[in-house]
Protein backbone atom coordinates (compact mmCIF):
# COMPACT_ATOMS: atom_id res chain seq x y z
CA UNK A 1 0.00 0.00 0.00
CA UNK A 2 1.44 3.32 -1.10
CA UNK A 3 1.92 6.22 1.31
CA UNK A 4 -0.76 8.19 -0.55
CA UNK A 5 -3.23 5.32 -0.02
CA UNK A 6 -2.37 5.19 3.65
CA UNK A 7 -2.91 8.96 3.96
CA UNK A 8 -6.26 8.77 2.21
CA UNK A 9 -7.17 5.81 4.44
CA UNK A 10 -6.22 7.93 7.48
CA UNK A 11 -8.34 10.91 6.40
CA UNK A 12 -11.22 8.69 5.43
CA UNK A 13 -11.02 7.18 8.92
CA UNK A 14 -11.04 10.66 10.52
CA UNK A 15 -14.13 11.65 8.53
CA UNK A 16 -15.92 8.39 9.28
CA UNK A 17 -15.23 8.67 13.01
CA UNK A 18 -16.55 12.26 12.94
CA UNK A 19 -19.64 11.22 10.97
CA UNK A 20 -20.31 8.38 13.40
CA UNK A 21 -19.96 10.77 16.36
CA UNK A 22 -22.34 13.27 14.77
CA UNK A 23 -24.98 10.62 14.12
CA UNK A 24 -24.81 9.10 17.56
CA UNK A 25 -23.69 11.70 20.10
CA UNK A 26 -25.03 15.08 19.01
CA UNK A 27 -28.48 14.28 20.31
CA UNK A 28 -27.32 12.78 23.62
CA UNK A 29 -28.64 14.61 26.66
CA UNK A 30 -25.25 15.45 28.27
CA UNK A 31 -24.07 17.13 25.04
CA UNK A 32 -27.18 19.30 24.82
CA UNK A 33 -27.18 20.10 28.55
CA UNK A 34 -23.46 20.89 28.96
CA UNK A 35 -22.98 22.23 25.44
CA UNK A 36 -26.01 24.44 24.98
CA UNK A 37 -28.31 24.85 27.98
CA UNK A 38 -25.51 25.38 30.49
CA UNK A 39 -23.83 28.36 28.80
CA UNK A 40 -27.28 29.79 28.05
CA UNK A 41 -28.28 29.72 31.73
CA UNK A 42 -24.85 30.99 32.72
CA UNK A 43 -25.29 33.95 30.40
CA UNK A 44 -28.84 34.62 31.62
CA UNK A 45 -27.78 34.55 35.28
CA UNK A 46 -25.07 37.11 34.49
CA UNK A 47 -27.11 39.28 32.17
CA UNK A 48 -30.59 39.47 33.68
CA UNK A 49 -31.22 42.37 36.08
CA UNK A 50 -28.03 44.23 35.09
CA UNK A 51 -27.44 47.06 32.77
CA UNK A 52 -24.94 45.65 30.37
CA UNK A 53 -24.07 47.03 26.97
CA UNK A 54 -24.81 43.98 24.86
CA UNK A 55 -22.65 45.22 22.00
CA UNK A 56 -19.62 45.14 24.32
CA UNK A 57 -20.57 41.87 25.97
CA UNK A 58 -21.42 39.89 22.79
CA UNK A 59 -17.84 38.90 21.72
CA UNK A 60 -17.23 37.36 25.17
CA UNK A 61 -20.60 35.66 25.13
CA UNK A 62 -19.90 34.17 21.70
CA UNK A 63 -16.48 32.91 22.85
CA UNK A 64 -18.08 31.35 25.96
CA UNK A 65 -20.69 29.56 23.83
CA UNK A 66 -17.94 28.41 21.49
CA UNK A 67 -15.98 27.03 24.38
CA UNK A 68 -18.89 25.14 25.90
CA UNK A 69 -20.35 23.72 22.69
CA UNK A 70 -17.07 22.69 21.03
CA UNK A 71 -15.74 21.05 24.21
CA UNK A 72 -18.97 19.26 25.16
CA UNK A 73 -18.92 16.43 22.59
CA UNK A 74 -15.37 15.11 23.17
CA UNK A 75 -15.64 14.20 26.87
CA UNK A 76 -18.68 12.07 26.22
CA UNK A 77 -17.57 9.91 23.30
CA UNK A 78 -14.74 7.70 24.58
CA UNK A 79 -16.21 6.85 28.02
CA UNK A 80 -19.61 6.25 26.41
CA UNK A 81 -18.04 3.93 23.84
CA UNK A 82 -16.02 2.12 26.49
CA UNK A 83 -19.17 1.60 28.56
CA UNK A 84 -21.17 0.38 25.56
CA UNK A 85 -18.33 -1.89 24.36
CA UNK A 86 -18.10 -0.15 20.99
CA UNK A 87 -14.64 1.34 21.62
CA UNK A 88 -12.99 -2.03 20.99
CA UNK A 89 -15.00 -2.47 17.79
CA UNK A 90 -14.03 1.01 16.59
CA UNK A 91 -10.34 0.38 17.22
CA UNK A 92 -10.55 -2.93 15.38
CA UNK A 93 -11.29 -1.06 12.14
CA UNK A 94 -8.34 0.14 10.01
CA UNK A 95 -7.70 3.18 12.20
CA UNK A 96 -5.06 4.18 14.68
CA UNK A 97 -5.44 6.23 17.83
CA UNK A 98 -4.79 9.50 15.99
CA UNK A 99 -7.63 8.76 13.59
CA UNK A 100 -9.99 8.45 16.53
CA UNK A 101 -8.64 11.54 18.33
CA UNK A 102 -8.89 13.74 15.22
CA UNK A 103 -12.29 12.31 14.27
CA UNK A 104 -13.68 13.07 17.73
CA UNK A 105 -12.09 16.54 17.59
CA UNK A 106 -13.69 17.21 14.20
CA UNK A 107 -17.10 16.17 15.54
CA UNK A 108 -16.82 18.61 18.47
CA UNK A 109 -15.52 21.32 16.20
CA UNK A 110 -18.42 21.00 13.75
CA UNK A 111 -20.95 20.96 16.61
CA UNK A 112 -19.43 24.16 18.02
CA UNK A 113 -19.33 25.92 14.65
CA UNK A 114 -22.91 25.01 13.64
CA UNK A 115 -24.49 26.10 16.96
CA UNK A 116 -22.46 29.28 17.17
CA UNK A 117 -23.04 30.32 13.58
CA UNK A 118 -26.69 30.74 14.57
CA UNK A 119 -25.71 32.88 17.58
CA UNK A 120 -23.28 34.84 15.41
CA UNK A 121 -25.90 35.57 12.74
CA UNK A 122 -28.43 36.66 15.41
CA UNK A 123 -25.75 38.92 16.94
CA UNK A 124 -24.81 40.45 13.59
CA UNK A 125 -28.44 41.10 12.72
CA UNK A 126 -29.45 42.74 16.01
CA UNK A 127 -26.27 44.45 17.22
CA UNK A 128 -25.30 46.50 14.17
CA UNK A 129 -21.60 45.68 14.07
CA UNK A 130 -19.75 47.14 11.14
CA UNK A 131 -17.56 44.23 10.14
CA UNK A 132 -15.06 44.98 7.39
CA UNK A 133 -13.37 42.32 5.23
CA UNK A 134 -10.46 42.10 7.65
CA UNK A 135 -12.89 41.53 10.52
CA UNK A 136 -14.77 38.83 8.61
CA UNK A 137 -11.51 37.07 7.68
CA UNK A 138 -10.26 37.33 11.25
CA UNK A 139 -13.55 36.01 12.58
CA UNK A 140 -13.58 33.08 10.15
CA UNK A 141 -10.03 31.95 10.92
CA UNK A 142 -10.45 32.42 14.68
CA UNK A 143 -13.73 30.47 14.67
CA UNK A 144 -12.01 27.52 12.98
CA UNK A 145 -8.94 27.63 15.20
CA UNK A 146 -10.92 28.30 18.40
CA UNK A 147 -13.37 25.47 17.69
CA UNK A 148 -10.47 23.10 16.99
CA UNK A 149 -8.69 24.15 20.19
CA UNK A 150 -11.74 23.81 22.47
CA UNK A 151 -12.84 20.57 20.86
CA UNK A 152 -9.38 19.07 21.35
CA UNK A 153 -9.60 20.05 25.02
CA UNK A 154 -12.87 18.08 25.17
CA UNK A 155 -11.16 15.05 23.64
CA UNK A 156 -8.27 15.38 26.09
CA UNK A 157 -10.74 15.37 29.01
CA UNK A 158 -12.07 12.02 27.75
CA UNK A 159 -8.60 10.48 27.65
CA UNK A 160 -8.33 9.15 31.23
CA UNK A 161 -9.02 5.42 31.23
CA UNK A 162 -12.61 5.60 32.48
CA UNK A 163 -15.70 3.89 31.14
CA UNK A 164 -18.06 6.08 33.15
CA UNK A 165 -19.40 9.11 31.22
CA UNK A 166 -20.64 10.73 34.46
CA UNK A 167 -17.12 10.69 35.98
CA UNK A 168 -15.65 12.29 32.88
CA UNK A 169 -18.42 14.90 32.68
CA UNK A 170 -17.65 15.80 36.31
CA UNK A 171 -13.94 16.12 35.54
CA UNK A 172 -14.83 18.14 32.47
CA UNK A 173 -16.88 20.57 34.61
CA UNK A 174 -14.00 20.90 37.06
CA UNK A 175 -11.64 21.94 34.29
CA UNK A 176 -13.97 23.98 32.10
CA UNK A 177 -15.64 26.25 34.64
CA UNK A 178 -12.48 27.78 36.12
CA UNK A 179 -11.24 28.46 32.58
CA UNK A 180 -14.38 30.53 31.91
CA UNK A 181 -13.78 32.72 34.94
CA UNK A 182 -10.17 33.46 34.05
CA UNK A 183 -10.79 34.35 30.45
CA UNK A 184 -11.89 37.98 30.39
CA UNK A 185 -15.50 37.15 29.52
CA UNK A 186 -17.18 38.43 32.67
CA UNK A 187 -14.44 40.84 33.74
CA UNK A 188 -12.66 42.64 30.87
CA UNK A 189 -8.93 42.04 30.61
CA UNK A 190 -8.10 45.69 31.27
CA UNK A 191 -9.95 45.59 34.63
CA UNK A 192 -8.07 42.52 35.89
CA UNK A 193 -5.15 42.98 38.27
CA UNK A 194 -2.54 40.93 40.12
CA UNK A 195 -2.85 37.15 39.96
CA UNK A 196 -6.08 37.42 37.97
CA UNK A 197 -4.26 39.31 35.27
CA UNK A 198 -1.57 36.60 35.08
CA UNK A 199 -4.07 33.72 35.20
CA UNK A 200 -5.98 34.86 32.11
CA UNK A 201 -3.02 34.00 29.92
CA UNK A 202 -3.38 30.33 30.93
CA UNK A 203 -6.87 30.09 29.48
CA UNK A 204 -7.21 29.52 25.72
CA UNK A 205 -10.57 31.31 25.80
CA UNK A 206 -8.79 34.61 26.58
CA UNK A 207 -7.18 34.65 23.14
CA UNK A 208 -10.43 33.94 21.31
CA UNK A 209 -12.25 36.66 23.30
CA UNK A 210 -9.46 39.06 22.35
CA UNK A 211 -9.71 38.18 18.62
CA UNK A 212 -13.51 38.47 18.72
CA UNK A 213 -13.22 41.89 20.42
CA UNK A 214 -10.88 43.02 17.67
CA UNK A 215 -13.15 41.66 14.92
CA UNK A 216 -16.38 43.14 16.26
CA UNK A 217 -15.28 46.30 18.05
CA UNK A 218 -11.75 46.96 16.85
CA UNK A 219 -10.36 46.67 20.40
CA UNK A 220 -7.64 44.28 21.46
CA UNK A 221 -5.29 43.89 24.45
CA UNK A 222 -3.01 41.16 23.14
CA UNK A 223 -1.10 41.28 19.83
CA UNK A 224 -3.02 39.33 17.18
CA UNK A 225 -0.06 37.11 16.34
CA UNK A 226 0.14 36.07 20.01
CA UNK A 227 -3.60 35.31 20.07
CA UNK A 228 -3.34 32.96 17.08
CA UNK A 229 -0.06 31.44 18.21
CA UNK A 230 -1.43 30.68 21.66
CA UNK A 231 -4.60 29.06 20.28
CA UNK A 232 -2.40 26.91 18.02
CA UNK A 233 -0.03 26.05 20.89
CA UNK A 234 -2.93 25.07 23.18
CA UNK A 235 -4.38 22.90 20.38
CA UNK A 236 -1.06 21.11 19.86
CA UNK A 237 -0.69 20.54 23.62
CA UNK A 238 -4.24 19.15 23.95
CA UNK A 239 -3.89 16.82 20.94
CA UNK A 240 -0.42 15.61 22.02
CA UNK A 241 -1.60 14.90 25.56
CA UNK A 242 -4.70 13.09 24.25
CA UNK A 243 -2.45 10.95 22.07
CA UNK A 244 -0.19 10.18 25.03
CA UNK A 245 -3.09 9.31 27.39
CA UNK A 246 -4.89 7.17 24.83
CA UNK A 247 -1.69 5.30 24.01
CA UNK A 248 -1.08 4.74 27.72
CA UNK A 249 -4.56 3.32 28.12
CA UNK A 250 -3.91 1.00 25.15
CA UNK A 251 -0.76 -0.21 26.89
CA UNK A 252 -2.62 -0.72 30.19
CA UNK A 253 -5.60 -2.46 28.62
CA UNK A 254 -8.80 -1.15 27.05
Amino acid at each position, binding site marked *: *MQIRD*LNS*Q*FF*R*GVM*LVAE*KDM*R*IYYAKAPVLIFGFLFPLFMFLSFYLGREIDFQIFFPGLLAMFFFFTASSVGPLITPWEKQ*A*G*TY*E*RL*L*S*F*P*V*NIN*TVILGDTAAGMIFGIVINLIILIVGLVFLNYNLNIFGILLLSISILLGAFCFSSLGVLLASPSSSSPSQIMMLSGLVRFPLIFISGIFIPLENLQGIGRTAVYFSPITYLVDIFNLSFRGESHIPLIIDFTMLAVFSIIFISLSNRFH*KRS*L*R*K*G*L
Partner: protein
Amino acid sequence: MNAIEVKNLTKQFGDLTAVNHISFEVEKGEIFGFLGPNGAGKTTTIRMLTGLLTPDSGDIFIDGVDIRKNTIKAKMKMGVIPEMGNIYVDLTAKQNIIMAGRFYGISKRELDKKADSLLEQFGLYERKNDPVRTFSKGMKQRVNVASAIVPDPEILFLDEPTSGLDVQSQRLIRNIIKEMNQKGTTIFLTTHNIEEANILCERVGIINKGKIVAIDAPERLKRTFDKTQSVEISFHKMIDGSLIEKSGLASRMEKLGDKWKFYTDNPDKLTKYLVRFAEDQDLTIISMNICGASLEDAFVKLTESKDYAD
Protein backbone atom coordinates in the same frame (compact mmCIF):
# COMPACT_ATOMS: atom_id res chain seq x y z
CA MET B 1 4.33 -16.59 3.74
CA ASN B 2 2.26 -17.24 6.87
CA ALA B 3 -0.99 -15.35 7.47
CA ILE B 4 0.00 -14.67 11.08
CA GLU B 5 3.48 -14.83 12.57
CA VAL B 6 4.07 -14.19 16.26
CA LYS B 7 7.55 -14.07 17.75
CA ASN B 8 8.33 -13.81 21.46
CA LEU B 9 5.22 -11.81 22.24
CA THR B 10 5.04 -10.53 25.81
CA LYS B 11 2.57 -8.37 27.70
CA GLN B 12 2.62 -7.42 31.35
CA PHE B 13 -0.02 -5.63 33.40
CA GLY B 14 1.81 -4.47 36.52
CA ASP B 15 3.28 -7.57 38.13
CA LEU B 16 1.12 -9.93 36.13
CA THR B 17 2.63 -11.40 32.97
CA ALA B 18 -0.50 -11.93 30.91
CA VAL B 19 1.37 -13.20 27.84
CA ASN B 20 4.82 -14.65 28.31
CA HIS B 21 7.13 -14.89 25.28
CA ILE B 22 4.76 -16.79 23.02
CA SER B 23 5.59 -17.66 19.41
CA PHE B 24 3.48 -19.37 16.78
CA GLU B 25 2.44 -19.19 13.12
CA VAL B 26 -0.86 -19.59 11.38
CA GLU B 27 -0.76 -20.69 7.76
CA LYS B 28 -2.78 -19.01 5.04
CA GLY B 29 -6.22 -20.59 4.66
CA GLU B 30 -6.02 -22.37 8.02
CA ILE B 31 -8.63 -22.40 10.79
CA PHE B 32 -6.59 -21.99 13.96
CA GLY B 33 -8.20 -22.35 17.38
CA PHE B 34 -6.74 -20.59 20.40
CA LEU B 35 -7.89 -22.18 23.62
CA GLY B 36 -7.23 -21.60 27.26
CA PRO B 37 -8.97 -21.27 30.62
CA ASN B 38 -10.26 -17.92 31.87
CA GLY B 39 -7.41 -15.48 32.46
CA ALA B 40 -4.93 -17.57 30.46
CA GLY B 41 -4.07 -14.73 28.08
CA LYS B 42 -6.30 -15.46 25.07
CA THR B 43 -8.01 -12.08 24.83
CA THR B 44 -4.78 -10.20 25.55
CA THR B 45 -3.12 -12.13 22.70
CA ILE B 46 -5.92 -11.51 20.21
CA ARG B 47 -6.02 -7.83 21.18
CA MET B 48 -2.30 -7.54 20.43
CA LEU B 49 -2.68 -9.43 17.15
CA THR B 50 -5.44 -7.04 16.06
CA GLY B 51 -3.61 -3.88 17.10
CA LEU B 52 -5.88 -3.04 20.04
CA LEU B 53 -3.15 -3.48 22.63
CA THR B 54 0.51 -2.57 22.39
CA PRO B 55 2.84 -5.48 23.23
CA ASP B 56 5.72 -4.90 25.65
CA SER B 57 8.01 -6.89 23.39
CA GLY B 58 7.93 -9.29 20.47
CA ASP B 59 6.85 -9.10 16.85
CA ILE B 60 3.56 -9.65 15.07
CA PHE B 61 3.35 -9.99 11.29
CA ILE B 62 -0.03 -10.02 9.58
CA ASP B 63 0.43 -11.39 6.07
CA GLY B 64 4.02 -10.18 6.29
CA VAL B 65 3.12 -6.71 7.59
CA ASP B 66 4.50 -5.65 10.96
CA ILE B 67 1.39 -4.48 12.81
CA ARG B 68 3.39 -2.32 15.23
CA LYS B 69 4.93 -0.34 12.38
CA ASN B 70 2.06 -0.38 9.86
CA THR B 71 -1.07 -0.67 11.98
CA ILE B 72 -3.55 0.56 9.38
CA LYS B 73 -2.03 -1.48 6.56
CA ALA B 74 -2.16 -4.65 8.68
CA LYS B 75 -5.71 -3.90 9.85
CA MET B 76 -6.88 -3.52 6.22
CA LYS B 77 -6.18 -7.25 5.84
CA MET B 78 -8.29 -8.34 8.78
CA GLY B 79 -11.83 -8.49 10.04
CA VAL B 80 -12.27 -8.62 13.80
CA ILE B 81 -15.07 -9.80 16.04
CA PRO B 82 -13.91 -8.67 19.48
CA GLU B 83 -15.16 -10.39 22.61
CA MET B 84 -16.54 -7.23 24.15
CA GLY B 85 -16.94 -5.43 20.84
CA ASN B 86 -20.54 -4.45 20.57
CA ILE B 87 -22.06 -2.75 17.62
CA TYR B 88 -23.63 0.71 17.72
CA VAL B 89 -27.11 0.23 19.15
CA ASP B 90 -28.23 3.70 18.06
CA LEU B 91 -27.64 2.75 14.42
CA THR B 92 -29.67 0.27 12.38
CA ALA B 93 -28.33 -3.15 11.38
CA LYS B 94 -27.67 -1.93 7.84
CA GLN B 95 -26.03 1.32 9.00
CA ASN B 96 -23.64 -0.69 11.19
CA ILE B 97 -22.59 -2.94 8.30
CA ILE B 98 -22.22 -0.01 5.88
CA MET B 99 -20.19 2.00 8.39
CA ALA B 100 -17.83 -0.95 8.92
CA GLY B 101 -17.36 -1.39 5.17
CA ARG B 102 -16.64 2.29 4.60
CA PHE B 103 -13.66 2.09 6.96
CA TYR B 104 -12.16 -0.34 4.43
CA GLY B 105 -12.75 2.04 1.54
CA ILE B 106 -15.61 0.12 -0.10
CA SER B 107 -17.90 2.37 -2.14
CA LYS B 108 -21.36 3.20 -0.79
CA ARG B 109 -23.04 1.66 -3.85
CA GLU B 110 -21.21 -1.65 -3.49
CA LEU B 111 -21.81 -1.62 0.25
CA ASP B 112 -25.51 -1.13 -0.17
CA LYS B 113 -25.74 -4.37 -2.17
CA LYS B 114 -23.33 -6.24 0.09
CA ALA B 115 -25.13 -5.19 3.26
CA ASP B 116 -28.49 -6.36 1.90
CA SER B 117 -27.02 -9.68 0.85
CA LEU B 118 -25.36 -10.22 4.24
CA LEU B 119 -28.54 -9.25 6.09
CA GLU B 120 -30.41 -11.80 3.97
CA GLN B 121 -27.77 -14.45 4.72
CA PHE B 122 -27.99 -13.75 8.46
CA GLY B 123 -31.79 -13.76 8.50
CA LEU B 124 -32.03 -10.08 9.42
CA TYR B 125 -33.23 -8.55 6.16
CA GLU B 126 -36.72 -7.82 7.48
CA ARG B 127 -35.21 -5.92 10.42
CA LYS B 128 -32.48 -4.12 8.47
CA ASN B 129 -33.78 -0.62 9.24
CA ASP B 130 -34.53 -1.23 12.93
CA PRO B 131 -32.16 0.23 15.53
CA VAL B 132 -29.92 -2.51 16.89
CA ARG B 133 -31.00 -1.66 20.46
CA THR B 134 -34.25 -3.54 19.74
CA PHE B 135 -32.37 -6.75 18.80
CA SER B 136 -31.76 -9.89 20.88
CA LYS B 137 -28.19 -10.87 21.84
CA GLY B 138 -28.01 -13.44 19.04
CA MET B 139 -29.24 -10.94 16.46
CA LYS B 140 -26.71 -8.35 17.65
CA GLN B 141 -23.90 -10.88 17.32
CA ARG B 142 -25.05 -11.68 13.79
CA VAL B 143 -24.78 -7.97 12.91
CA ASN B 144 -21.38 -7.98 14.60
CA VAL B 145 -20.19 -10.87 12.43
CA ALA B 146 -21.70 -9.34 9.28
CA SER B 147 -19.88 -6.06 10.01
CA ALA B 148 -16.58 -7.94 10.37
CA ILE B 149 -16.87 -9.93 7.14
CA VAL B 150 -18.26 -7.19 4.91
CA PRO B 151 -14.78 -6.24 3.56
CA ASP B 152 -14.04 -9.93 2.69
CA PRO B 153 -10.97 -9.93 4.93
CA GLU B 154 -7.96 -12.12 4.27
CA ILE B 155 -7.80 -12.98 7.97
CA LEU B 156 -10.76 -13.15 10.33
CA PHE B 157 -10.19 -12.90 14.08
CA LEU B 158 -13.02 -14.12 16.28
CA ASP B 159 -12.90 -13.81 20.06
CA GLU B 160 -15.50 -16.12 21.63
CA PRO B 161 -17.94 -15.55 18.77
CA THR B 162 -20.63 -17.99 19.91
CA SER B 163 -20.37 -17.42 23.66
CA GLY B 164 -23.80 -17.16 25.27
CA LEU B 165 -25.74 -17.48 22.01
CA ASP B 166 -28.74 -19.65 21.19
CA VAL B 167 -28.15 -22.83 19.18
CA GLN B 168 -29.45 -21.36 15.90
CA SER B 169 -27.14 -18.34 16.10
CA GLN B 170 -24.20 -20.59 17.04
CA ARG B 171 -24.81 -22.84 14.03
CA LEU B 172 -25.24 -19.88 11.71
CA ILE B 173 -21.96 -18.32 12.84
CA ARG B 174 -20.08 -21.64 12.57
CA ASN B 175 -21.41 -22.12 9.05
CA ILE B 176 -20.29 -18.62 8.11
CA ILE B 177 -16.81 -19.35 9.50
CA LYS B 178 -16.60 -22.53 7.39
CA GLU B 179 -17.88 -20.71 4.31
CA MET B 180 -15.40 -17.86 4.72
CA ASN B 181 -12.59 -20.39 5.14
CA GLN B 182 -13.64 -22.27 2.00
CA LYS B 183 -13.33 -18.97 0.13
CA GLY B 184 -9.73 -18.71 1.36
CA THR B 185 -10.01 -16.61 4.53
CA THR B 186 -7.65 -17.56 7.34
CA ILE B 187 -9.54 -17.93 10.63
CA PHE B 188 -8.10 -17.24 14.09
CA LEU B 189 -10.65 -18.31 16.65
CA THR B 190 -10.56 -18.15 20.43
CA THR B 191 -13.24 -20.12 22.18
CA HIS B 192 -14.19 -21.70 25.47
CA ASN B 193 -16.18 -24.27 23.59
CA ILE B 194 -13.76 -27.16 23.08
CA GLU B 195 -16.23 -29.02 20.90
CA GLU B 196 -16.46 -25.98 18.64
CA ALA B 197 -12.67 -25.96 18.26
CA ASN B 198 -12.71 -29.72 17.66
CA ILE B 199 -15.24 -29.41 14.85
CA LEU B 200 -13.85 -26.29 13.18
CA CYS B 201 -10.11 -26.09 13.69
CA GLU B 202 -7.30 -27.70 11.73
CA ARG B 203 -4.85 -26.84 14.50
CA VAL B 204 -5.28 -25.56 18.01
CA GLY B 205 -2.93 -23.70 20.30
CA ILE B 206 -3.49 -24.03 24.02
CA ILE B 207 -2.39 -21.19 26.27
CA ASN B 208 -2.16 -21.39 30.04
CA LYS B 209 -0.86 -18.75 32.43
CA GLY B 210 0.41 -16.73 29.49
CA LYS B 211 2.45 -19.55 27.95
CA ILE B 212 1.68 -21.77 24.99
CA VAL B 213 1.51 -25.33 26.33
CA ALA B 214 0.65 -27.12 23.10
CA ILE B 215 0.08 -26.47 19.42
CA ASP B 216 -1.11 -29.32 17.25
CA ALA B 217 -3.97 -30.80 15.27
CA PRO B 218 -6.89 -31.74 17.56
CA GLU B 219 -6.64 -35.45 16.70
CA ARG B 220 -2.90 -35.54 17.47
CA LEU B 221 -3.48 -33.75 20.76
CA LYS B 222 -6.13 -36.29 21.69
CA ARG B 223 -3.77 -39.17 20.91
CA THR B 224 -1.18 -37.72 23.28
CA PHE B 225 -3.69 -38.47 26.03
CA ASP B 226 -4.89 -41.85 24.79
CA LYS B 227 -4.70 -43.34 28.26
CA THR B 228 -7.76 -41.43 29.31
CA GLN B 229 -10.29 -43.47 27.35
CA SER B 230 -13.74 -43.83 28.83
CA VAL B 231 -16.88 -45.94 28.71
CA GLU B 232 -20.22 -44.18 28.82
CA ILE B 233 -23.16 -46.31 29.92
CA SER B 234 -26.82 -45.77 30.65
CA PHE B 235 -29.10 -48.35 32.31
CA HIS B 236 -32.89 -48.36 32.47
CA LYS B 237 -32.57 -47.04 36.02
CA MET B 238 -29.87 -45.10 37.84
CA ILE B 239 -27.26 -47.15 39.69
CA ASP B 240 -24.72 -46.35 42.35
CA GLY B 241 -21.54 -45.66 40.35
CA SER B 242 -19.28 -46.65 43.22
CA LEU B 243 -20.33 -50.30 42.62
CA ILE B 244 -18.42 -50.15 39.32
CA GLU B 245 -15.55 -48.14 40.73
CA LYS B 246 -14.99 -50.90 43.31
CA SER B 247 -13.94 -53.23 40.47
CA GLY B 248 -10.73 -51.23 40.21
CA LEU B 249 -11.12 -51.00 36.45
CA ALA B 250 -12.13 -47.32 36.41
CA SER B 251 -9.67 -44.66 37.48
CA ARG B 252 -12.43 -42.08 37.96
CA MET B 253 -16.09 -41.72 37.22
CA GLU B 254 -18.44 -38.94 36.28
CA LYS B 255 -22.25 -38.73 36.31
CA LEU B 256 -23.56 -37.14 33.12
CA GLY B 257 -27.33 -36.71 33.39
CA ASP B 258 -28.83 -40.22 33.11
CA LYS B 259 -25.45 -41.74 32.22
CA TRP B 260 -22.21 -42.70 33.95
CA LYS B 261 -18.84 -42.09 32.40
CA PHE B 262 -16.00 -44.30 33.66
CA TYR B 263 -12.40 -43.42 32.77
CA THR B 264 -10.12 -46.37 32.22
CA ASP B 265 -6.83 -47.60 30.79
CA ASN B 266 -8.51 -50.79 29.63
CA PRO B 267 -11.89 -50.16 28.00
CA ASP B 268 -12.16 -53.76 26.79
CA LYS B 269 -12.03 -55.22 30.32
CA LEU B 270 -14.33 -52.55 31.72
CA THR B 271 -16.94 -53.10 28.96
CA LYS B 272 -17.06 -56.82 29.64
CA TYR B 273 -17.32 -56.16 33.36
CA LEU B 274 -20.22 -53.73 32.81
CA VAL B 275 -22.13 -56.27 30.70
CA ARG B 276 -21.68 -58.92 33.41
CA PHE B 277 -22.71 -56.38 36.06
CA ALA B 278 -25.92 -55.58 34.11
CA GLU B 279 -26.76 -59.30 33.87
CA ASP B 280 -26.10 -59.90 37.57
CA GLN B 281 -28.18 -56.88 38.65
CA ASP B 282 -30.91 -57.53 36.08
CA LEU B 283 -30.32 -54.13 34.47
CA THR B 284 -31.19 -53.23 30.88
CA ILE B 285 -28.42 -51.38 29.03
CA ILE B 286 -29.98 -48.41 27.19
CA SER B 287 -26.74 -47.25 25.61
CA MET B 288 -23.00 -47.93 25.86
CA ASN B 289 -20.15 -46.09 24.11
CA ILE B 290 -16.41 -46.45 24.24
CA CYS B 291 -14.96 -42.95 23.92
CA GLY B 292 -11.39 -42.08 23.01
CA ALA B 293 -9.73 -39.19 24.71
CA SER B 294 -11.52 -36.00 23.79
CA LEU B 295 -9.97 -32.63 23.02
CA GLU B 296 -11.55 -31.52 26.27
CA ASP B 297 -9.57 -34.19 28.14
CA ALA B 298 -6.38 -33.02 26.44
CA PHE B 299 -7.24 -29.42 27.27
CA VAL B 300 -7.93 -30.23 30.94
CA LYS B 301 -4.71 -32.21 31.24
CA LEU B 302 -2.64 -29.50 29.60
CA THR B 303 -4.10 -26.67 31.64
CA GLU B 304 -4.27 -28.49 34.97
CA SER B 305 -0.92 -30.19 34.96
CA LYS B 306 1.79 -28.40 36.88
CA ASP B 307 4.33 -29.55 34.30
CA TYR B 308 2.54 -27.58 31.64
CA ALA B 309 1.21 -24.75 33.72
CA ASP B 310 4.43 -23.51 35.25
